[in-house]
């Protein structure tokens, strides 16, 4: 608007009305921006369900509405309980259990790495570390969080698997591991989710009022007692929120697990064997030229839908815990 150059004589009707009109227009436009974020979620839902329908029923929902016939190609029982996953094979098998297992194995394993280490780091930062140490340790962990996942993938395939795990497997179990292994994926995803657990847990521990700590110290408690019996219980919902966030991140993690754990869809308890997660399957399909309408292309969205529902559940849970935490110490 040009109102800023001309002198404004008090509440001259014309300019004031124009300014208010500009304000209303700006408000509408900005609301439009905010609405885009909601539209994004709706679009994700729509695209995933629409295309996943073509995998299960042979036609997209939009095509069905236009009169395409739908017959069930893949049953949900087969999809969720079948133990062979090869939708692009000459004799196709549609059991997604092996890749769902792969994702869960990496997620649970990584949680065993990131949760203890992340929580311990958070306690150290919040209760023990001097200001000087904290000023160095926190930015270092932020760097760890800022490194692209593809770099972690490289770290797994070029260092963790061949240099760390291969000699151990060889010496202790006499197993010759290939380029990929489940344990390598677990370790690398665990490492990359440590900063998430530690930073959010530390935030909620720091938010615990000092009165609670001082009360315990006055009773003769050591720092150990205060950390484990006062601070940790008081901040538990924030700490849990950080765990859920780390788990959710591990479920959706793609490049690191693809380069670390590999492309062999199978259910196994051997940590040195190659497995495939849902995300790794999606990458392997995108690597080929999967054209629209092929079963490979459709399966991408079926798997993507399962992935999305899993992370959505985690995010809603996380939201729940976070809100409870905010209520406690506001």
């Amino acid at each position, binding site marked *: 608007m040009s109102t800023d150059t001309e002198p404004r004589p008090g509440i001259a009707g014309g300019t004031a009305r124009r300014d208010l009109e500009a*304000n209303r227009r700006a408000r509408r436009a900005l609301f439009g921006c905010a609405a885009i974020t909601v539209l994004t979620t709706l679009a994700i839902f729509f695209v995933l369900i629409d295309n996943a329908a073509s995998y299960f029923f042979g036609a997209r929902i939009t095509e069905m509405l236009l009169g395409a016939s739908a017959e069930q190609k893949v049953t949900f029982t087969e999809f969720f309980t079948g133990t062979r996953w090869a939708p692009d094979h000459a004799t196709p098998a549609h059991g997604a259990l092996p890749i769902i297992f792969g994702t869960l194995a990496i997620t649970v394993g990584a949680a065993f790495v990131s949760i203890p280490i992340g929580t311990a780091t958070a306690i150290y930062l919040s209760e023990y570390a001097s200001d000087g140490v904290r000023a160095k340790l926190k930015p270092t962990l932020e760097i760890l969080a800022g490194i*692209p996942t593809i770099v972690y993938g490289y770290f797994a395939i070029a260092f963790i698997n061949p240099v760390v795990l291969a000699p151990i497997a060889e010496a202790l179990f006499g197993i010759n591991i290939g380029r990929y292994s489940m344990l390598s994926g677990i370790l690398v995803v665990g490492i990359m989710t440590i900063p998430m657990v530690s930073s959010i847990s530390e935030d909620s521990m720091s938010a615990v009022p000092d009165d609670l700590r001082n009360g315990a110290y006055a009773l003769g408690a050591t720092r150990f007692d205060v950390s484990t019996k006062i601070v940790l219980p008081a901040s538990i919902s924030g700490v849990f929120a950080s765990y859920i966030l780390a788990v959710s991140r591990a479920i959706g993690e793609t490049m690191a697990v693809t380069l670390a754990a590999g492309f062999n869809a199978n259910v196994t308890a051997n940590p040195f064997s190659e497995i495939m997660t849902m995300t790794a399957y999606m990458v392997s399909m995108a690597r080929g030229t999967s054209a629209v309408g092929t079963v490979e292309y459709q399966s991408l969205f079926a798997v993507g839908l399962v992935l999305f529902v899993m992370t959505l559940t985690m995010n809603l849970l996380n939201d729940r815990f976070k809100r409870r935490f905010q209520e406690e110490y506001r």
Partner: protein
Amino acid sequence: MSTETDDPLFTEIDLEWEHLKNRLFLGVIFAASMFGVVMLALLLLDVATDFYVGVTEYDIGLGEFFTRDGSRREELAGFRGAIVASIMLMVLTAILSFFVGVGSAIYLEEYAPDTRVTRLIEANLANLAGVPSIVYGLLALAAFVNGIGIGPILIAGSVALALLVMPIIIVTTQEALRSVPDGVRNGSYATGATEWQTIRRVVLPAAMPGIMTGTILALARAIGETAPLIMVGALFVNRTPFGPFDRFSAMPTQIYNWAAEPSQHFVHLAATGIAVLLAFVFVMNGIAVYLRNKYETDI
């Protein structure tokens, strides 16, 4: 010690054990804290040595590396196309996400009434931030690449990345707006300014450093994202893209291509590419931290 005190109240407590427990605990959690640091050091060291070995033993000339496009032949492969594509992607992503992201944040902080709709938008935002990046790739693939049929071009990749970083930009902008004291706003209102005039001439200039910091951090995240680009189809393209409507392969996808090759030469090319990618990421983070420190105390 404590067991020999006369006071019957403390006879039950072994103070020495309590202190030992405290020290042991400190040792354990200090070691755990160092684990992350050690892993970061190992990761950087691994990339650095592989980069060094690549240059010395595999004759990866840095001059050729920066001036050649990718290639199926390992001795001819370079990184120029990927670097150019990544820079173009960042510019497009910034344009697509900045205005919408900042606009949403302004609406939510300055205008939005406390209604169900507002709470829905806020809750949805928290959710979007947790959606795996690969799902944004699927969205761009189905809606843009095949939906409106633009094919696996740069614009499609930047749409996926822009949607991916939008929640980050919105949240950091909200924080920046919140840090502008209400007194500043009220001073503006007192002169008869409308909300929009106040935002444009008072609040936004004051919040700009914070907004820029958040945007740069978001772009530093976007430049390393691989999965959405792979979903969109940014693989196996070697030449430098001409513009936003050309097919492309960016830095992270090129690195993935090389790292997945069995040949050691390609693996060392990947390490060299990672060194370049990390340089980009660290410089962007550095600029963001510099901006934050420089303007932190202004208001």
